[in-house]
């Protein structure tokens, strides 16, 4: 029976078949033989998550736009499909032309969160590609990866041939050209990898050697050939207005997590919250112009038919002409019944007027992220938000007719005490009081305050990259305490299980050796670890044991200033020295100003013409 027929048979039995069938509006099925370069874009999680991801839409359009390359999508199948694929002896097939992964020249994974790593191994294996780089032959695809987690590539060093560090738009095409050249000239895999290493922003882990001290910390990381640079600089796209942005998005038939137009209004953030990795990785701040955004919004609306536009960025409230943008979008979209939503609205954005305009169209619940319960703690993490700020915005919202508010906090931040936990409850209580302060006829019915606390995970390239994560025991105790103090009328409390966060902490700051744990855990059956129903913490712990590694070494150990960190040979533009300086300020509960108000000298000022706010020579 041919492949297609076996696939059809699996589809008849599987749940949620539309995840696997493709054919969505605005997807592209290019003629295979007419395109010399075949790129398989792999999202290492389910279709519903992958199709919500903006990066996929950008790169999908970008690669397909070139006459010489085509891009097809792969997603992680759910467990029932995996079982059916085994039964029917089916490889993982692309969504477009239903070809197996090993028929492609390049397969590229996007690394959005550490808990998707086991899915990468699963997809490679189902795709018929050897798991480890060193086992791949001349006919196997080149396996690449990019995205925020690529900034610490070491845990995946055994499995990924080349990493793209930083903004993908430019380097993607350069990388594809190098791989096309290999194909045309019949270059060996090794030659091709060396050529890739010469591209700015590309890291080829097999060209580096790592040595360790007796205590398990890293002694050295050295390139083993002249093509590989000692330090790999991230790529930065300097002008978003002249950078590719798709004018159409694929529109899934079924509902996905973010089922709407995402308009990236800017990249980067100048706030300098000390726990935030994205805030460092995506520096500097770059805005798209109002005109460009309006133009994109209209084109995307016409090509997708979506009924909602969301503005996407790390800190939309900081966009310099946000009120104008929202007003203009609303004016143009009103006729078309398209609503505008602001997902990451920060509580210190001056937006009362726009808030009032938003409600014309739809009243969603408002989200605030004070992150910590006391001013002291917020100063430690440099979250430039005061209680008065928050309460004022909440009051505005309640007066404006909202009745549903979500508050996000982190627990386990460095120096956190019981007082800081109690502060979370105090804040929630004050928010509730604000609601009841609005006269009854004026306020909307049905107060709902949701408090969510996540477990703090120290991340590379942040001032907390040296910090220890709370042990699972401590986290559980703190959560118990929070549950008690948050037993408040009108307040619902959500918390995250500490086990996933613990593992996330291991892999976020893992070194090359932890790759063996990943492989072992995968072999023991760990996949889809981002999902409660499939996450198996005990197996992960078994895998650590069998590999002779201690997870606490990665998660719960405080690093010293002079320790060589696994990602130190990746240059994010922000210097280690700056991060240490920030860590020391945090220890002293000192804050650092938003760098739009004056450059803080994070290190990017060293790169000419990259940061518009940079002020060379400071600090």
């Amino acid at each position: 029976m041919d492949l297609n027929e076996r696939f059809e048979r699996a589809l008849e039995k599987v749940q949620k078949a539309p995840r696997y069938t493709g054919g969505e509006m605005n997807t592209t099925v290019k003629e295979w033989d007419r395109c010399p370069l075949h790129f398989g874009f792999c999202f290492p999680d389910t279709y519903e998550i992958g199709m919500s991801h903006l990066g996929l839409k950008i790169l999908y359009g970008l690669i397909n736009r070139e006459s010489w390359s085509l891009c097809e999508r792969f997603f992680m199948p759910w467990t029932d499909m995996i079982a059916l694929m085994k039964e029917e002896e089916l490889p993982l097939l692309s969504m477009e032309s239903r070809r197996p992964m090993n028929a492609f020249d390049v397969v590229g994974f996007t690394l959005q969160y550490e808990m998707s790593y086991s899915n990468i191994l699963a997809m490679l294996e189902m795709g018929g590609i050897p798991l480890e780089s060193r086992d791949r032959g001349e006919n196997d695809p080149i396996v690449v990866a990019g995205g925020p987690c690529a900034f610490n590539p070491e845990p995946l060093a055994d499995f990924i041939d080349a990493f793209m560090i930083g903004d993908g738009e430019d380097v993607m095409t350069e990388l594809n050209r190098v791989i096309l050249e290999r194909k045309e000239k019949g270059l060996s895999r090794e030659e091709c990898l060396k050529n890739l290493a010469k591209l700015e922003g590309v890291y080829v882990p097999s060209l580096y050697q790592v040595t360790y001290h007796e205590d398990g910390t890293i002694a050295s990381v050295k390139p083993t050939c002249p093509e590989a640079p000692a330090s790999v600089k991230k790529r930065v796209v300097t002008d978003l207005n002249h950078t590719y942005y798709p004018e159409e998005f694929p529109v899934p038939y079924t509902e996905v997590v973010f089922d709407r137009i995402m308009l990236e209004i800017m990249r980067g953030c100048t706030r300098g919250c000390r726990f935030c990795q994205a805030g460092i990785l995506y520096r500097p701040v770059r805005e798209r112009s109002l005109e460009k955004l309006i133009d994109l919004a209209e084109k995307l609306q016409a090509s997708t038919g979506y009924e909602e536009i969301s503005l996407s960025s790390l800190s939309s409230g900081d966009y310099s002409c946000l009120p104008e943008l929202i007003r203009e979008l609303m004016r143009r979209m009103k006729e078309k019944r398209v609503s505008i939503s602001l997902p990451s609205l920060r509580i210190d954005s001056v937006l009362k007027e726009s808030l009032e305009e938003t409600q014309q169209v739809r009243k969603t619940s408002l989200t605030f992220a004070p992150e910590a319960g006391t001013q002291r703690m917020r100063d430690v993490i440099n979250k430039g938000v005061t209680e008065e700020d928050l309460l004022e915005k909440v009051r505005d919202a309640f007066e404006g007719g909202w009745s549903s508010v979500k508050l996000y906090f982190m627990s386990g931040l460095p120096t956190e005490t019981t007082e800081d936990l109690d502060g979370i409850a105090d804040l929630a209580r004050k928010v509730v009081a604000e609601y009841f302060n609005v006269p009854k006829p004026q306020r909307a019915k049905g107060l709902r305050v949701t408090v969510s606390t996540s477990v703090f995970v120290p991340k590379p390239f942040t001032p907390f990259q040296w910090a220890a994560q709370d042990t699972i025991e401590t986290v559980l105790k703190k959560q118990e305490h929070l549950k008690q103090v948050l037993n408040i009328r009108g307040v619902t409390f959500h918390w995250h299980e500490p086990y996933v966060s613990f593992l996330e902490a291991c892999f976020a700051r893992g070194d090359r050796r932890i790759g063996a744990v990943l492989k072992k855990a995968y072999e023991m059956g760990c996949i889809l670890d981002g999902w409660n129903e499939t996450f198996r913490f005990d197996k992960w712990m078994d895998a650590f044991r069998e590999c002779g590694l201690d997870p606490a070494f990665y998660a719960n150990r405080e690093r010293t200033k002079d320790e060589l960190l696994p990602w130190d040979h990746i240059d994010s533009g922000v210097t280690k020295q700056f991060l240490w300086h920030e860590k020391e300020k945090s220890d002293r509960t000192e804050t650092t100003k938003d760098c739009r108000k004056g450059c803080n000298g994070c290190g990017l000022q060293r790169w000419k013409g990259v940061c518009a706010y940079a002020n060379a020579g400071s600090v």
Partner: protein
Amino acid sequence: MRMLAVFEKGERIRHIGHLDIQRSVQRGLRRSGLPVAYSNGFNPHILVTFASALSTGACGKREIMDVTMEEDVSEQEFMEKMNRAMPPEMQLSEARAVDRKHSSLPPMLRAARYDLLIREEKYAARLIDAIPSMMARETIPAMRKTKTALKECDIKPLIFELNGEGKHLYATLVLTERESCKPGMLMEALCREANITEEVRVLITREALLGENEEGKLVPLETL
């Protein structure tokens, strides 16, 4: 004005459920830029209804959407704009402009014509051979799935026509707002008649939705 448009649900997307088909049509209409009418309220949606929901897993050759227009447009313009706006698996083959007062379609629905492609060839001849004896029976029992349980019913009065050729069965079955014979029920009865206990896989294609004309003849619903 309302536009009755005939569209396809292609094989590739046959596992898409009715709710998702509805949403895809909504979005297609939005992309088309046609002057469609919207409902009022916080979440305005386009006034479009469907003659009948098609089950998940089945293809449709001539499904019907019923779109209320804000302004009049020609049938040709509607077709052109929609076919540019709809994915390849959901193209339109016909459109007919009717008056806003034209009766709504679901109550006029009488039957549907199906093409059932038998995937396992070895069973095709046996199934086709079993048709005459099954149809000669006084009653043809089958199980009807309700929301809560399985109920036995007689489908004999629900079969207008049934024959077969090669790997195909062709059936015209009752489909109204009140009662219907699903192709699955027919297959169950026919397999029993042919003494086949294994599961027989069929690809279901709904070929046409039918209503009754003044002479009491079954004709395509969109022409009424």
